């Protein structure tokens, strides 16, 4: 058994590693065609998100009221969009769903990636430290998590929103330095800054608990104790020995939380914190479309499919990444 502990302890250490971690990982990933397809799909989304105007047939805000709820393939006959073909149908204001889907990519991808990163970084750091510390520190840190968990975040969200809108009505010289900074950051993030803040406040809690539980489990194992015996520092043990062992379930849990972020954005925007209509996001298109499920299913179908496909791509990629990073399946 000690033998295996030593093997574990050195698995991720650079001493005996013949190849670089990055190249090794990439090599494992590209072996699977499926993974490559997923990667290409996500890359394509990224391109669309960066320059939606290039791909969208019409603007996201162009309304054509009499042409509401047209099925996919219909050619508009009247109003502002006369002559335009609704490839994915039209919504309740006669807008082109395809164009809105394309424009909505940016917000949803930004929220997915930023939300996941924020939650991942905070959650893993917090959970590792809590799980690895003494039981008193651990207890204290986890009770803080309980407190944030029990606090009704909606209150905070409304407060932030009111603060922001009051600020927005004021001329710049009356905002104060902090107010100006907030507005600048918010504008720079396309109005999503507070969405990130709101997601950041709550989304790491589950991750922190997961990491802490895993850390409690692994810190007692031989390879960690062995590392401690040879005099490794705490940070090193956490980063080099514990992290690679616990990261598998964390990646899985994180990718699964992405739809939550996308829907959180839709909800936040709905109550006024975040982007404002008519700018679309996938989340708000789905939230808007559910009522039309039996009237005009395409209003719901296309954004839901786009989101599901993206989630699939993230997950298959996440699986592959997990396999590639797992110290035990490495050679």
């Amino acid at each position, binding site marked *: 058994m000690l033998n295996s502990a030593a093997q574990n302890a050195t698995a991720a250490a650079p001493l005996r590693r013949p190849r670089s971690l990055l190249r090794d990982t990439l090599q494992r990933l590209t072996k*699977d065609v499926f993974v490559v397809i997923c990667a290409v799909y996500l890359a394509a989304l990224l391109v669309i998100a960066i320059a939606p105007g290039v791909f969208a047939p019409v603007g996201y805000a162009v309304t054509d009221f009499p042409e509401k709820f047209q099925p996919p393939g219909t050619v508009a006959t009247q109003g502002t969009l006369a002559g335009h073909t609704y490839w994915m149908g039209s919504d309740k204001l006669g807008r082109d769903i395809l164009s809105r889907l394309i424009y909505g990519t940016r917000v949803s991808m930004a929220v997915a990636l930023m939300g996941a990163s924020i939650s991942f970084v905070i959650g893993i750091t917090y959970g590792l430290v809590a799980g690895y510390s003494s039981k008193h520190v651990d207890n204290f840190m986890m009770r803080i998590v309980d407190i944030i968990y029990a606090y009704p975040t909606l209150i905070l969200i409304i407060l932030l929103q009111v603060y922001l809108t009051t600020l927005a009505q004021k001329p710049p010289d009356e905002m104060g330095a902090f107010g100006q900074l907030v507005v600048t950051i918010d504008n720079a993030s396309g109005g999503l800054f507070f969405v990130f803040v709101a997601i950041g406040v709550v989304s790491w809690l*589950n991750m922190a608990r997961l990491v802490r539980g895993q850390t409690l489990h692994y810190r007692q194992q031989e390879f960690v104790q062995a590392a401690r015996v040879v005099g490794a520092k705490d940070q090193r043990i956490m980063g080099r020995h514990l992290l690679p062992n616990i990261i598998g379930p964390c990646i899985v*849990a994180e990718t699964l939380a992405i739809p939550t972020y996308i829907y959180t954005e839709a909800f936040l925007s709905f109550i006024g914190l975040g982007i404002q209509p008519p700018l679309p996001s996938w989340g708000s298109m789905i939230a808007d479309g559910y009522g039309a*499920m039996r009237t005009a299913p395409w209003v719901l179908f296309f954004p839901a499919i786009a989101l599901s496909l993206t989630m699939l791509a993230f997950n298959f990629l996440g*699986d592959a990444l997990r396999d590639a990073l797992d110290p035990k399946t490495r050679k």
Partner: protein
Amino acid sequence: MIRLIVRRLLWFIPVFFVVTGITFVTMHALPGGPFDKEKTPPAMVQQMENAFGLNRPVYEQYFIWLGNAARLNFGPSLALRGKPVAGFLLPGLAVSVQLGIMALLFAFAVGLPAGIIAAYHRGRWQDRTATLVAILGVSIPAIVLGPLLVWVFGLWLDWLPVAQWEPLTEGFWPWLSHLILPAITLGAGISAIVARLTRASLLQVLNEDYIRTAHAKGLPRQLVTMRHALRNALIPIVTYIGPLTAAVITGSLVVEQVFAIPGMGRYFVTSITSRDYPMVMAVVVIYAMVIVLANLSVDILYIFIDPRISDAE
């Protein structure tokens, strides 16, 4: 273990004070009050706020609230005039707990086998299918899945009731039939998480040495899985599901709306948007208690699953 339980329950006291204090202060900082309506003249609003003591300083109101809460009196609702908040929350909680437990049962009944199968057939079609279904499960929100299930099973096939609630006292089948669709809607996302986490942590555990040793000793495969691997693989699931359980058994606004179920989840949102201060506070207290209990249960479960963790306590 008793020491753990006692210590954790003692920890509830500071958690209680911090959560209720922060909630109380921020809640009163929200613009608008419980009596602000489109039509009520400001002088009337003032009059009503005075009648309910809302014109006192916030800290004073907090101490009054604490005093009443200590006697388990959470006051009358402001939005539902004159009715004690407990009269809404307790029946609601009872409904939500039943629904939540059914949802969790569904989630584990589907998620665990799916995760195990996926792990065994890693990379093959069974795995991919399980992943596909799981991803659909988390990607489709309750607001879409609920009406979809209602449409298919309630209206089109006419197998199950469309919505609404029947208590168990009305008979087992009426009770269960009204629970199935909402429980699936509520549990779908969790079952996906269970399936994916089971797969991930099983794969991890299956590679560990004691499993290899067990294989080497010639133990049959399923037995090895159950006895050794699954037990360890459960740790991340239990950890992750613990606090989620608290959320599930205290109800979900969306599922309650879609299925017209009189649960407690609605009050998490409506109490805030109607500025029903006593209701907000009571909801927070109940939720904090459930969270603390859920996390305590998770830590107790650790002891059974992995005795080494208990050494840490």
